[in-house]
């Protein structure tokens, strides 16, 4: 069976587009051309596929016509449309139709290849002629070979041929004699077309140099930035090593896609050129970037972190919520509220100092790291410095939490303040719009409580923060109290508990985030026990009757109780209620459930034997009160009616 090569020659594709094409191509050829065996080649200047063992003919196709019972009416028309006679029509599964024989692959392939070009989808695409084909970057040539034969097709004004192009500056135009020769033809023209082979060559080159690192993971991009990888190493002035390590690494990786090596050295992957010349040029570029950073670093360090912190009153945090100095003042109060000690307070005072640093203006992603480094240089205790460094953690839904207690405290205060400010200034996230990442901040808070073990009473902290904002004369336009609900809602997706259990727990007597989480998990764990069932019944039956009824007495009056079942319930309630309360306060939720369970049988008996809605209005009011008291006692465990039974 023949081999088919198809190459789409492009101006330099972004790495992301290469990966998109790579992910789609195999599927495209399987659904159009068929043939199981083959390879996909993707690089900056080409997207290609080589299918070996292409079927010689396309499969026969069943073209379905009208249902058989409409033969008299419709068969003739259908046959005429397909240019066959009625006698040629067959019947399958109750329908008239026609087997359209497959075509030789040569005939079918041009349109299939065109469909592949037009079918590739890119996240970002462009036109290079008005109304023309959209592609990641302009297509400049097409090469299509079925074994030795050149397949002719035209897409968007580009005609296919038998030529490809080697390395842009050294390879030139080359002929592909046979489809199977594609990769070797390109290798001879200075191009390694196979992405995995390029990756292997790059890794091999880096390993030969040794001691390389890739903290930002640029290798996955570099594989698609070169066709002719040459791994080279360069060095830079050692004085730049006094820069914070993250700054040096970011200067290397974020824009230049270099790999840090030990000491004042770096590796990079070139796509050609004379190695000595190319190394010298790249060294100059990196030294320029590091020189730029060092220039800012020296000016920042000459000022020192205290002086930077003093500049914060002239830097706006959020319009309407004052300066970063105001923010730092709030953070200091909040860490106190969170039980943070001296290190937390000192870290909060200096947390935002690096917002005044020139280096942060150049490397905004390194806020926190730079502040921490400046605090270290100023001789602050490591607990303070690492808390400054960790204040933005976790920075993603499953990113690591701060490692230190002061770090967790400061990170919590930071999120509480961001949420309170946004809600107080009427900048709540709506729908998919959450430009300041408030949902992520709320998830971070939940994780700091659940995994970090920090006691976080959101409502209380928000009130404290709001008071501070008002004192600072912030332009408060909204009540931020619903921050607490906003945060608690995030628990729903985080815990090992169904949503309904989390919702139930949120209505319980505990408000601290971690406690709500524990309660939800305890309810989930006990849900199928008999005890839980009793507690549930006590809550549910009393709530169903009394929850909606009017006219309950203000307080329970035992002297109005006459019935034995009623007296029994009052007695059990009197014993169970304080035990539930105490257990919940100690976060002994299984104990609380056990205590609440004791109310189940007396509630059942009460409903069997006592008529609540009796004629005597004072007795009725008292019985309703009794049921409400039962519900509220068990309700310390949450709104159990949320839980489906």
């Amino acid at each position, binding site marked *: 069976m023949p081999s088919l090569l198809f190459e789409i020659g492009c101006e330099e594709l972004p790495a992301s587009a290469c990966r998109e094409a790579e992910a789609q191509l195999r599927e495209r050829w399987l659904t159009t051309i068929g043939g199981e065996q083959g390879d996909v080649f993707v690089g900056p200047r080409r997207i290609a596929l080589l299918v070996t063992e292409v079927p010689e003919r396309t499969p026969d196709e069943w073209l379905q016509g009208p249902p058989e019972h409409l033969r008299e009416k419709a068969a003739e028309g259908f046959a005429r449309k397909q240019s066959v006679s009625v006698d040629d029509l067959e019947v399958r599964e109750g329908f008239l139709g026609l087997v359209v024989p497959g075509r030789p692959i040569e005939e079918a392939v041009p349109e299939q290849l065109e469909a592949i070009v037009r079918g590739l989808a890119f996240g970002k695409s462009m036109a290079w002629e008005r109304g023309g084909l959209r592609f990641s970057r302009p297509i400049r040539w097409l090469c299509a070979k079925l074994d030795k034969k050149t397949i002719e097709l035209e897409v968007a004004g580009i005609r296919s041929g038998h030529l490809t192009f080697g390395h842009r500056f050294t390879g030139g135009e080359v002929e592909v004699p046979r489809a199977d020769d594609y990769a070797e033809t390109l290798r001879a023209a200075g191009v390694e077309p196979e992405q995995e082979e390029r990756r292997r060559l790059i890794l091999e080159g880096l390993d030969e140099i040794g001691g390389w690192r890739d903290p930002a993971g640029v290798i996955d991009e570099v594989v698609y930035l070169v066709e002719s990888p040459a791994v080279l190493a360069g060095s830079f002035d050692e004085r730049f090593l006094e820069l914070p390590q993250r700054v040096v690494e970011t200067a290397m990786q974020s824009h230049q896609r270099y790999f840090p090596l030990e000491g004042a050295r770096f590796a990079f992957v070139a796509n050609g050129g004379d190695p000595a010349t*190319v190394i010298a040029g790249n060294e100059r570029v990196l030294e320029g970037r590091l020189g730029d950073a060092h220039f800012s670093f020296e000016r920042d360090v000459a000022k020192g972190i205290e002086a930077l912190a003093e500049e914060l009153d002239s830097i706006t945090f959020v319009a309407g919520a004052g300066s970063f100095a105001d923010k730092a003042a709030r953070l200091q109060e909040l860490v106190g509220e969170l039980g943070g000690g001296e290190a937390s307070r000192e870290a909060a005072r200096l947390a935002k100092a690096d917002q005044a640093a020139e280096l942060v203006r150049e490397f905004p992603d390194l806020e926190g790291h730079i502040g921490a480094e400046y605090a270290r240089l100023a001789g602050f205790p490591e607990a303070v410095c690492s808390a400054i460094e960790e204040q933005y953690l976790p920075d993603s839904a499953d990113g690591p939490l701060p490692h230190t207690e002061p770090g967790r405290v400061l990170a919590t205060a930071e999120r509480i303040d961001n949420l309170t400010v946004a809600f107080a200034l009427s900048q709540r996230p709506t729908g998919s719009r959450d430009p300041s990442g408030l949902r992520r901040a709320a998830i971070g808070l939940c994780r700091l409580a659940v995994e970090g073990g920090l006691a976080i009473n959101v409502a209380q902290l928000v009130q404290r923060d709001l008071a501070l904002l008002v004192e600072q004369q912030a332009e408060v336009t909204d009540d931020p109290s619903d921050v607490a609900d906003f945060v608690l809602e995030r628990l729903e997706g985080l815990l090992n508990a169904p949503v309904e259990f989390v919702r139930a727990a949120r209505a319980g007597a505990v408000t601290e985030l971690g406690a709500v989480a524990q309660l939800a998990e305890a309810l989930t764990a006990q849900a199928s026990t008999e005890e839980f069932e009793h507690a549930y019944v006590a809550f549910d039956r009393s709530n169903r009757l009394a929850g909606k009824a009017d006219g309950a007495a203000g307080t329970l009056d035992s002297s109005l109780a006459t019935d034995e079942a009623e007296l029994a319930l009052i007695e059990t309630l009197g014993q169970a209620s304080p035990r539930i309360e105490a257990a919940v306060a100690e976060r002994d939720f299984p104990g609380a459930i056990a205590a609440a369970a004791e109310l189940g049988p007396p509630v059942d008996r009460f409903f069997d034997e006592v008529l609540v809605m009796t004629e005597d209005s004072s007795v009725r009011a008292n019985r309703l009160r009794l049921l409400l008291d039962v519900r509220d006692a068990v309700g310390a465990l949450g709104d159990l009616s949320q839980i489906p039974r």
Partner: protein
Amino acid sequence: MVRLMSAPTYQEMIASLERYWADEGCVLMQPYHTEVGAGTFNPATFLRCLGPEPWKTAYVEPSIRPTDGRYADNPFRFQQFFQYQVVLKPSPDDVLDRYFASLEAVGIDLQKHDVRLVEDDWEGPTLGAWGLGWEIWVDGMEVTQFTYFQQLGGLELDLIPAEISYGLERLAMFLQNKRSAFELEWAPGFTWGDVYRENERQWSIYNFEEAPVDALMRRFADHEAECRALVERSLSLPAYDQVLKCSHAFNLLDARGAISVTERASYIGRVRNLARAVAELYLESLAEPAV
């Protein structure tokens, strides 16, 4: 053309680019007379790229970016630097080869160096403009931005232009092997620093410390109103200058730290609305025969 044996001076490099692009059939324009942040803002690019008429131009453009000033203390950052701007509308199929030949024209041996095209998508929010393209690196140094415009003034384009913006200081630093723009040889006996150091210092003081905030806010509003009035009178070219003046006033206010994050978006939106109105008017005027 004579191949330069030693590194070209700054002005020789510019002369080589002028000669090269003139030979390619470009109209050589001169810098625009109103402050612009990039050559794209020059009406020879922004307006001429609208409409169905082919256009080829090349020119030096001083880029005025007040926030980038560093009082002449920093060898890499300036409130004024120079771009060499080339527009080819429509972009020819071999546009990249023509660009690479221009690098050879200034003395870069393409076989000896590592010349790379690295994805860089461009967006000009104040102009309602975007395009896809690359940064072009020579041995890791970004010397040019290359963009296929897709929209200008929020409008689709009749012909897709290629915009080639050389960073002249970076290109010269590469050619002359210099670590600071101030050390570049501008002409024999004169460095870039000799010509512009004091300019950087004084303008940095003006941009960051002296530019009058209240007056600039008033001016912004005045230029905005004038632009609207001129659009009403169907005078797209004078109206466009008012867009540029608004944009520059905004840049100065930004340098003075007078614009908060939230206000920023609103200022940018106001400039963009003006740019769009002018672009629409300009297109209409192209469609009507001149009176």
